[in-house]
Each structure stands twice: as structure tokens, then as C-alpha cells.
């Protein structure tokens, strides 16, 4: 489904953040990417979102090199990928409902579909009673759940969660991981980057360990080891 073929990324100042990464992620997998800060996890995620371009190698989704996609093709690709960020990145002047509905509106979905699906998904993340709240009226955990609702609303093929629990307390961390697990159980591929040893060890799924821009370990059912 996702293929990294000898991907390297070097900035103009000579800083090499990814070095010869080759990797395959299959449909339905839940993959944790772990490593110290600066190991290259976030750059790897940005490559998948086409926010960063590789200096060498290709990143493909099915058979498409995602860095050659332009205009409508790129927009369509991004609709197949749901993203959850550490800092939530909700739109501050939109309510929880509007933040989630925005992704559907952007995809050109009908109003009645939006009116039916958004409350349903917000209910799934246990926020139905706060759907008219603005982000600043929600706690960190609640904001992250809105971000997850936004990421899954268009039924994407992949969910990318970049340190989704980095700003949350243990209780909210547990909730978020449970939601991501549930999403994965329903067949969506989940790629998760994290610093949290507890999460990785409890999941018992595939773990990719990175160090200095390289993959140092790739275990089918791994543990958090640095």
C-alpha cells in the first residue's frame, strides 16, 4: 500500500534527516514509529503528506509516486489520508462540529450526509454534547478527539498520527490510543509516531525504530527499545 524506496532527505545546509529508507506498509497494519527527537520520524510523516520532498528515492501510495501528484490528484490523495497532529491543529474560529464538517465540505459531500455523519463521528469520540464548542473551550484531550473525528470522517485508507498523545495526560492518552486501535480494527491502516513506551508495548503491533535518519529495527510485534 505504502512504499518508501531508498528515500533520503538532505537540507541545503547539509543536514541529512533521512538516509536511504526503504519500507513497505501493508493495508490494515498498525505501525508505530519510535525514536529519539531528531531521529527523522516527523520528516518521514511529512513525506507521506507530501509536505516534504525527498532528495533521493520515491514514496508511493499504491502505484502513484505521491511527490509527482499535482492539483486535483494531490487533493484526492490527501482525502484518502487522515492526519492527527501532536498540537491538534484545529481551526480556532470553527466549532468542533464545523472543524469535522470542513473535511467533508472540502471533499464536496452533500449537506444531508454531513448533517448525519458529523454528529455520529463526534459521538464515536464521545464529544456529541460538546460539538458546538470552539477549540479554546475544549481540553487538550477533547481537542485531540475532535482532530481524530476530522481525520476519520471521510473514511480514509490511512490514518497518520504524529505524536498524538504528546500533549496529553495518561488518561487522555489511553483514550486516544483506544480510539486509534478501534479505527485500525475496522480496517484502516494506522501509522503512529510516539515517544511513549507504554503505548507501544501495550499495542504489541509492528514497531519501526529510527535513529539518525535511518531505520535501525523493524519488528512485526515489537517493543519500545531505544
Amino acid at each position, binding site marked *: 500500500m505504502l512504499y518508501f524506496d531508498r528515500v533520503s532527505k538532505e537540507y541545503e545546509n547539509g543536514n541529512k534527516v533521512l538516509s536511504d529508507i526503504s519500507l513497505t506498509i501493508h493495508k490494515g497494519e498498525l505501525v508505530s514509529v519510535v525514536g529519539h527527537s531528531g531521529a527523522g520520524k516527523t520528516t518521514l510523516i511529512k513525506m507521506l*503528506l*507530501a*509536505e516534504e520532498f525527498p532528495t533521493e528515492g520515491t514514496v508511493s501510495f499504491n502505484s502513484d509516486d505521491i511527490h509527482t501528484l499535482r492539483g*486535483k490528484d494531490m*487533493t*484526492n490523495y*490527501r*482525502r484518502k489520508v*487522515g*492526519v492527527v497532529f501532536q498540537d491538534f*491543529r*484545529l*481551526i*480556532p*474560529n*470553527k466549532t468542533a462540529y464545523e472543524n469535522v464538517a*470542513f*473535511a467533508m*465540505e*472540502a*471533499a*464536496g459531500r*452533500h*449537506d444531508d450526509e454531513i448533517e448525519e455523519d458529523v454528529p455520529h463521528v463526534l459521538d464515536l469520540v464521545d464529544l456529541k454534547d460538546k460539538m458546538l464548542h470552539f477549540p479554546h473551550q475544549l481540553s487538550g484531550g477533547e481537542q485531540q478527539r475532535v482532530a481524530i473525528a*476530522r*481525520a476519520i470522517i*471521510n473514511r480514509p485508507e490511512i490514518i497518520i498520527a504524529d505524536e498524538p498523545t504528546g500533549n496529553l495526560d495518561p488518561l487522555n492518552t489511553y483514550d486516544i490510543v483506544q480510539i486509534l486501535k478501534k479505527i485500525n480494527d475496522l480496517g484502516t491502516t494506522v501509522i503512529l509516531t510516539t515517544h511513549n513506551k507504554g503505548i507501544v508495548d501495550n499495542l504489541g503491533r509492528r514497531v519501526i525504530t529510527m535513529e539518525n535518519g535511518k531505520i535501525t529495527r523493524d519488528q512485526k510485534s515489537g517493543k519500545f527499545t531505544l
Partner: protein
Amino acid sequence: MKPVLWKRTILAGLRGFYRNRTVSLSSIFILTITLSIVTSFYLFRAVFDYTLEQVKEKVDVRVYFTTDATEQQVTDIKAKLLGLSDVKSVEYTSREQALEDFKKKHVGDQLTLQALDELGTNPFGASLSVAAKDISRYSAIADQLSEGSGLLGDNKSAIDKVNYYQIKDSIDKLNSIIGWTNTVGFWLSIVFVLMSCMIVYNTIRLAIFVYRDEIAVMKLVGASNMFIRGPFIVEALLYALVATVLTLAIFFPATVWVTKKTIFFFEGLNINAFYLSHFVELALTLLIFGSLLTVISSFLAVRKYLKI
């Protein structure tokens, strides 16, 4: 674009305008100042043009006839002058009228009137006052009245003098002032417009800078460029609309006040009446100028953050 997308874009623009009140108000404030500068400039030009027109109206070339000239000769020359493309009007003053005017002018001057009586005859010739369509054309008209020209034909001897050559310097000076002020006015308006564009562009750029992260998120959740741009364009149009209404509202009492202060000075020019009679034209100009300015600024400012 589908109707549903139009609806979503307009609603999102209205919501953004209302919810980001501080940003909206500061943009409107700057735009109102810019549009006020444009309006002041527009009114200033009107006052200037009016004053210039008044001065131009007072300029004419006078053709004085000898006392022997017959009425037929004067009428012939008048008809020929009216046939010239540069001539706007020709006003005839008869010998009797000239005498009457002289007497009226010197009504208290007994010595002069007595001298006139002693002459026994009317010493004044008839005259024609020629107004040109454009002030720069007086020299061409004067040339037609000169001896070498074929315009006068047999009536040459009837002309005593043409005063163009006495007022030539004043006409030339006025001509150069008009040319100079038109050039300065043109460049000044270009500078004003460019300055206004820069101020508004930077204000909108700053307003949209606040949304750069949101724009990136919108891109990442799969929104198309047009879907992201649309609400910003709606907001830009609203800024222009509100700023136009505010500017027009400010200038109504302002022109009433200015009129009160200047009506005597400008000899009958009522700035408020001018403002009201040009209201629709001014409102449309401000709205179109403001909208183009804000929409183009918004378009350029958003473009920068869409490149991901």
C-alpha cells in the same frame, strides 16, 4: 463551481468576517482611510477643475473694429469666426453698446463724460468677443484674424486691432499652468493609488498571515485551493463593501461642513451638491476600486500559503 460550494463559501466567509471581528475591523479601518484619501482626491480634482474652468471662461480674444466698419462687415466676420472649428462662441458688442458700457463704467467721472460729449460722435467701434473651445487654440484663432490669412478677405480694413497679442503672455502662462497641473495631478494620483494599494495589500497580508497554519491544515485535510480561497475572497468583498459605506457616510457631513466654509470662496461651487450629484458614480468607483484591491491582495496573500 456547484451551487452548494457557492453556499458554503459565502457562509464560511460571513462566519469568518463575524468571528474574526478584530481582524475584520482593522482591515475595514485601513481600507476606509484609503478610500477616504481617494474620495478627497476626487473632490479636490473637482474643485480644481471647477476653478480652472472659471478662469478659462474669463479668457477671450477681442476683435475691435474701426468706427467706419459697417454692420455687414462685422456680421460677416462673426459668421466666419463661428465657422472655425476652434471657436466655441462669438459675442457681438455694437458701437452703441460699447458707448453705453463706457458711460456706465465712468458714471461718477464727470470729466471723462464731458470730454466724450465734446467729441460729438461715438468714438467706439464695434467688437467681437471670441471664446475658444480650448485655451491652447487662441493663437490659431488669432492667426486666422491676422492680415495674411484669407479669412477676412475684403473686410481686412474694418479691423482696428486684435487684443490677443496683448494678453498672449497671460494665455501662455495659463496654458503652461494647466499643462503642468494636469501632469502633476496625473502622477500624484498614480502615487496615491499605488500607496493605497501597498497599504491595503500589507494589511490584508498581515490578516491572512494569522491564518497560515489553518490554510496548511485545510490543504492537508484535502481542501482544494479554490475552496480555501473562496471564504477569504468573500471576506475581502465584505471589507470593501463596509469600508465604502463608511467612507460615503463620513463624507456626507464632511462635504456639508466644507461647503459652508467655502461657498463664498469658490464663487458658487457647492461641494456637497457636487458630492450628491456624483454620489452613484463615486460609490461605484469606491466599491470597485476597494473590491479589486482587497480581492487581489487576498488572492496573492493566500497563494503564498497554498504552496504545500
